[in-house]
């Protein structure tokens, strides 16, 4: 961010001004009542001087890239804003009336100017800015994403509202970009509860995603920690009816059950057994997608053998420990993750997941944690969950009933068959043999009886003859 560093070069004088302003703002924030009174104050004379020009609606600047930067400031809104008390110079300390001219300040484009201006915010809000720098938003900005938000995208620069205003369904800035997700949230039990007059306990966006350190919702543990922040007794409540509740909590995202109409899928993540954590893609050297594409010879998603080959490639990297796959059931989209229903509608029938052909196992992705924490996914065939080859490659994921290895089913049927067939054949052989032996013995007996009778008849004849 060369522009940021450039914008960050401040003179000793401006630093002093910033420091004084920061102290003033800090004091005012600490004493909100005092702030409220201060916010009602009329604008200072220097500010009025600025607004003499900048209150003109059509005041704008043509930039080098032919974009237009509006220079209009609504005086009333600014006076009522949180920043009204620090005045124009609070942020625009570099502007000197004597040298202030539309031509002196070179601005290439609006986006660049917005990014550079964040340094002004950092001057007073260092703590919040640090949080922002660790966010997915800042990460996207650094990666050159043209729409990722900077400070002024959420906090209208000349009408900065107090925190409480942002924490309302009507004014929460997140919905400006995430409209579909916000609509899903608004229709969810959280959104409905929050909409009730006087209800502030139900969560709004920032309660789960945090306001400035906005995290990747689909990271390994996802926002589960956020859910459990309010629903602290959830594990205990689940343990009363759900066997292996802790395991379910680890491998299933909350919305997978609590967003009952959502489409679910299994995400198999690369995991290192030695480091006991997900494998991450190194910044600047993306390997996963290239390797997955190369392994996927047919192009229709990885099958069991292709996935096994892909895992072999990752295990050849020379990293300590074995790289394997751990699975997690999650919903397919961010919108679905926010369609949370009342707990009475949550899925609780084991058979929904633990049965052959369960809908949750029809969609499979393989992923690696990207450099910013967001998963980089590649599609896989659902058969990878049932293949005997997967005993090695997908060794870290198995759902009883749903992910049975077909080969073991065949072995089981053969075993059951032999358990019945061996006694049956032996019994039959014994019976047939017994009949055969009996027949021979009967024949022998009858033969010897015939011999005896012949012998006795001959004897009688002989006896009679001798007589």
């Amino acid at each position: 961010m060369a522009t940021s560093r450039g914008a960050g070069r401040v003179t000793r004088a401006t630093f002093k001004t910033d420091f004084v302003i920061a102290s003033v703002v800090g004091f005012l924030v600490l004493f909100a009542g005092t702030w409220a009174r201060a916010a009602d104050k009329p604008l200072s004379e220097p500010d009025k001087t600025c607004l003499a020009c900048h209150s003109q609606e059509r005041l704008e600047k043509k930039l080098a890239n032919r974009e237009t930067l509006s220079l209009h400031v609504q005086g009333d809104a600014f006076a009522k804003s949180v920043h009204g008390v620090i005045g124009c110079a609070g942020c625009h300390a570099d502007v000197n009336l004597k040298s202030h001219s539309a031509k002196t300040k070179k601005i290439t484009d609006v986006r660049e100017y917005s990014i550079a201006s964040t340094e002004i915010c950092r001057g007073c809000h260092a703590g919040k800015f640090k949080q922002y720098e660790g966010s997915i938003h800042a990460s996207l900005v650094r990666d050159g994403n043209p729409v990722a938000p900077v400070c002024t995208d959420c906090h209208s620069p000349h009408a900065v509202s107090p925190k409480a205003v942002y924490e309302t369904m009507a004014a929460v800035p997140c919905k400006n970009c995430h409209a579909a997700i916000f609509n899903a949230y608004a229709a969810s039990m959280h959104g409905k509860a929050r909409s009730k007059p006087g209800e502030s306990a139900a969560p709004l966006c920032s309660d789960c995603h945090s306001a400035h350190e906005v995290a990747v919702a689909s990271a390994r543990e996802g926002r589960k920690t956020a859910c459990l922040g309010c629903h602290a007794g959830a594990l205990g409540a689940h343990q009363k009816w759900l066997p292996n509740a802790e395991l379910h909590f680890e491998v299933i995202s909350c919305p997978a059950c609590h967003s009952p109409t959502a489409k679910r899928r299994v995400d198999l993540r690369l995991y290192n057994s030695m480091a006991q954590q997900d494998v991450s893609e190194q910044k600047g050297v993306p390997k996963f997608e290239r390797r997955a594409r190369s392994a996927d010879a047919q192009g229709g998603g990885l099958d069991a053998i292709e996935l096994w080959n892909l895992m072999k490639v990752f295990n050849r990297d020379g990293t300590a420990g074995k790289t394997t796959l751990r699975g997690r059931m999650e919903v397919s989209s961010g919108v679905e993750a926010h369609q949370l229903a009342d707990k009475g509608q949550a899925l609780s029938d084991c058979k929904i997941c633990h049965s052959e052909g369960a809908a949750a196992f029809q969609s499979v992705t393989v992923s690696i944690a990207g450099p910013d924490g967001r998963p980089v996914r590649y599609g896989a065939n659902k058969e990878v969950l049932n293949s005997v080859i997967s005993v090695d490659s997908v060794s870290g994921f198995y759902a009883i009933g749903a992910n049975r290895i077909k080969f073991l089913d065949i072995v089981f049927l053969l075993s059951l068959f032999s358990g019945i067939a061996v006694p049956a054949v032996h019994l039959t052989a014994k019976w047939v043999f017994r009949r055969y032996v009996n027949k021979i013995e009967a024949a022998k007996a009858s033969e010897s009886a015939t011999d005896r009778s012949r012998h006795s008849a001959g004897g009688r004849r002989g006896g009679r003859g001798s007589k």
Partner: protein
Amino acid sequence: MERIYVHPLPVRLWHWVNAVGFVVMIVTGIQIRYVGLIDMMSFKTAVNLHNWTGFLLIGNFFIWLLFYLFSDKIKAYHPELSPTKHFRASFRQLQYYGYGIFRGDPNPHHVSVYRKFNPMQSMLYQVMMMLIVPIQFYTGILLWDVKRFSAAVDMLGGVRVVDTVHVLIFIFFTSYILIHAYLGTLGHTPAAHFKEMFTGYVEVEEKDG
């Protein structure tokens, strides 16, 4: 026929608890594995019954182990140290079950108080009781609470590896228990061996003289 006391009470108790327990484990195991195809009971009931019966069988195993460790009856499990002798005797026994029995030949193995197993039984039961059954218990415990035993599960290669071993042994026991029950009918009367396991007394041919 002479009656000799071969199966003491603890062994008989262990045997029948094991027999019933293994049937329950196989039935609930099939229900757990094939939920959706088979509907004998709910998945949850099958899981709970499988877990509790598993623990009962583990306890039962120790009844067997302690009894034999502290009894001279352990001689029944002493291996035949001469491989030639052992395999010759095993072959004779196999020949009897595969042929001699059909002809009405006498069983080559003569039961006595300290030699109740024929050579094939003595080899199979040693492997079963000292290897197969403990592995099944161990993998069963790991699968009972994968989260708690995650370190051991990972060390063995993952939950799918542990489950595959557990299922392979389950497959073995399914055919074993059917064949075992059938072999039980091959005494001097079809019910003779079953009676023995209830009374403890085995009827043997009286020795001449």
